[in-house]
């Protein structure tokens, strides 16, 4: 119960932009009762800090620890979309799909050169 309150407090700190304080509280937390939420909050915090690899790892762990939690799984899906360039293509307004599925360099004209096309 006490840790639940701490998690709420940390979430508020992140929303307020007090990232250092939030990070300190999360890292000092002893044996979090809800590891999924701890990982989720670390992911969100890492995203704000710009540490995107950490964000990716924490988001994955949160989604794996509590796959029923929509908030965590949706967040991880967003992270995956950003990594696979789907989000980029939405930003570019391109009609290309996330993975054009064709090998070879030329296919990437349709999705602005980002999707993987290793031969």
């Amino acid at each position, binding site marked *: 119960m006490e840790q639940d309150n701490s998690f709420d407090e940390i979430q508020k700190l992140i929303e307020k932009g007090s990232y250092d304080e939030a990070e300190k509280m999360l890292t000092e937390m002893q044996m979090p009762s809800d590891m999924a939420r701890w990982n989720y909050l670390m992911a969100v915090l*890492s*995203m704000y800090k*710009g*540490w*995107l*690899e*950490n964000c*990716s790892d924490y988001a994955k762990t949160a989604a794996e620890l509590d796959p029923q939690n929509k908030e965590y799984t949706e967040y991880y899906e967003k*992270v995956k979309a*950003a*990594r*696979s*360039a789907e*989000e*980029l293509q939405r*930003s*570019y307004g391109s009609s290309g799909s996330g993975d054009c599925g064709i090998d070879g*360099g030329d296919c*990437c004209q349709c999705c*602005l*050169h*980002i999707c*993987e*096309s*290793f*031969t």
Partner: protein
Amino acid sequence: MFGYLRPFKDELKVKDYQLYKSVYCGLCKSMKKEYGLLSTLMLSYDCTVLAMLCLSVNDEKYCVRKGRCTVNPLKKCSICKGEGWAFSFAGAVSVIMTRYKLNDTILDSGFLKKLAAFFLRLVFHGNYKRALKAYPEIDSLTAAMMESQAEAERNNAGIDRSADPTATLIKKLCGMISPGEAMRHQMEVFGYFVGRWIYLIDAADDVQKDMKHHNFNPFAAKYQGDIKATMGYCNEVLNMTASQMILSYELLELHSFKAILDNIVYDGLSYQQKKYTIDKYNEKNSDNKRGN
């Protein structure tokens, strides 16, 4: 900086490309005026973008006039001239960054490169002193970045920690050119992801060479010699960085050069990314296949 921030010419209107070139020539002229002809050797594409961003967010007045190329006076060109400090700032960044890059080459390279860097550092010493006097804060930020970068490399740091010094430097430079407190945070967030992307694309560009020579590279450890998997991983990490950069870019209030900056952020970076990850891998792969 490294010269990865460039427009994707095929998608840029001719008038915008001419304007981009005029900013490049304007920065060259400004550097010549402030630091002398030799300093134009330090001119970079990245600093051209920095000058343009500075002109744009500060709504600085500028004019484009006809003139002659600094390096080749027989060639006519358009030259952009700002009324404020955008070109002076970008020129100082160019000079100071070159100095630190030369210091780094002297420390890390083989004899011939070391000798060349030592000679260039002597040649550019006066320019560096002038830039240092005008913008000491750029120098102290760069010095701190280099120290932090060296420490990250000594400790074989992961991607986030390795990219953080360059990202933080560009973040602070963008904060310095911000028009006021209201936009500073957004400029800094954008700068952070630009810096992170620049560091990571440079690491991706070098990863195959670094894996071969067992040099430090933040991408090298994860897939232990599997180049195809490593290049895919580089692409994923760069994609995510670019997507965050775009989100922050869209919140900036730009007053000029928007078509060019849009082109650089939306098309130019992705073109460079493809060139240094996918194309480079495919090229090496087909060379190897031909060799077999």
